[in-house]
């Protein structure tokens, strides 16, 4: 989906905030939110890494940004757990109000609705029987796709022509795996793009490398 998360090349963020001494967690709640998310993903909600990333993307843009990285991880856990009926919608807000002494009625537990979906193996890498469609050195175009669901094809490369640099290990297609449609393992290609192709003549010269799934590409030579 075309959301706030797709930040490559967007402008207006200002100067970088760089603190080399910053600890992994800047406040205790960040560690709790991180650890609960690790458990919420597969173990508690039965939802995979791609669904987890999509849960982040589904947040409203202001929610995505407020409270930073672990703020959205907390909302991601809530989303995965409510998607699977492990907790009720509104349960976290109600419990929070109760914890601070308000008289609230907490919502009843919903019915469990975990996805009926069993991975065929651990992790994301899977063998593909067919040979790769493109070869190293070939020109390819990133397709101009705008799916409503999850994708790992960022906006800034869509429609642009690049060069296949390397064939990566084949892997589950995030676009279908995130929605429990199919694992759909595909070849993955590392594709390079010239900076002026992406951003116009006035940009700094550099080369951008990005890993793109077979479905995201079409031949350009």
């Amino acid at each position, binding site marked *: 989906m075309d959301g706030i*998360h*797709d*930040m*490559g*090349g967007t402008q207006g*963020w200002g100067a*970088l905030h760089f*603190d080399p001494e*910053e*600890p*992994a967690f*800047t406040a205790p*709640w960040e*560690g*709790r*939110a*991180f650890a*609960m998310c*690790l*458990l919420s993903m597969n173990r*508690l909600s039965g939802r995979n890494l791609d669904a987890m*990333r999509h849960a982040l993307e*589904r*947040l409203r843009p202001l*929610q995505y940004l407020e409270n930073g*990285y672990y*703020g959205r991880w*907390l909302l991601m*856990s809530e989303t995965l757990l*409510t*998607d699977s009926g492990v*907790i009720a*919608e509104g349960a*976290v*807000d109600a*419990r*929070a*109000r*109760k*914890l601070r002494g308000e008289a609230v009625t907490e919502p009843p537990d919903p019915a469990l609705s975990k996805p009926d979906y069993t991975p065929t193996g651990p992790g*994301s*890498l899977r063998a593909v029987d067919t040979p790769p469609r493109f070869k190293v050195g070939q020109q390819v175009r990133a397709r101009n796709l705008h799916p409503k669901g999850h994708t*790992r094809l*960022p906006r*800034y490369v869509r429609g642009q022509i690049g060069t296949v640099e390397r064939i*990566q290990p084949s*892997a589950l297609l995030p676009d279908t795996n995130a929605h429990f449609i199919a694992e759909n393992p595909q070849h*993955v290609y590392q594709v390079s793009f010239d*900076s002026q192709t992406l*951003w116009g003549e006035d*940009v*700094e*010269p*550099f*080369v*951008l*490398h*990005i*890993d*793109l799934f077979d479905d995201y590409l079409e031949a350009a030579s």
Partner: protein
Amino acid sequence: MSPVPAPSDLPVELRTEALESILVEKGLVDPAVLDKFIKTYAEDVGPLNGAKVVAKAWTDPEYKARLLEDGTAAIAELGFKGPQGECIVVLENTPTRHHLVVCTLCSCYPWPVLGLPPGWYKDPAYRARAVREPRALLEEFGLSLGPEVEIKVFDSSSEVRYMVLPERPAGSEGLSEEELVPLVTREAMTGVAKARPPA
């Protein structure tokens, strides 16, 4: 899919405590297990792992060749593997080629060798600008690269994770593998800095 959580004016600390309270009450989460995850990623899995990989590559040419050929396997030789490390590719910086790693879509990062991503790596300014004006961004980190240096930016959009093998700093020729480890920072292994010069 259910709707995403409604916008809330409750403090995030309190909402975090509330979720933990619900999950503990349901018997789904043991607070001691959360403590263990937190300790692992706050203290044990961090850039010291990657620094050991780099120091070994600087002192052992055969290891370096294996590392550049199959990063995942060579890193596993030192015992480093786990989540976000299914396929690690190592990129070698040279006097004329500089690599920079980013994840524009979230904050993908090679956890087994570098730990959890630091604040700057998750900063929207970093995610947005690394793929559009890397040279200007590196200046803000204090790294000026001459026009003779080609910059290659790697956007971590699949499950492949990238780690930079920085150049061995001048003046470090007489140092042992152990003495080289402290020169290697997480910033150098992401490509926003060079390795530290020896004291």
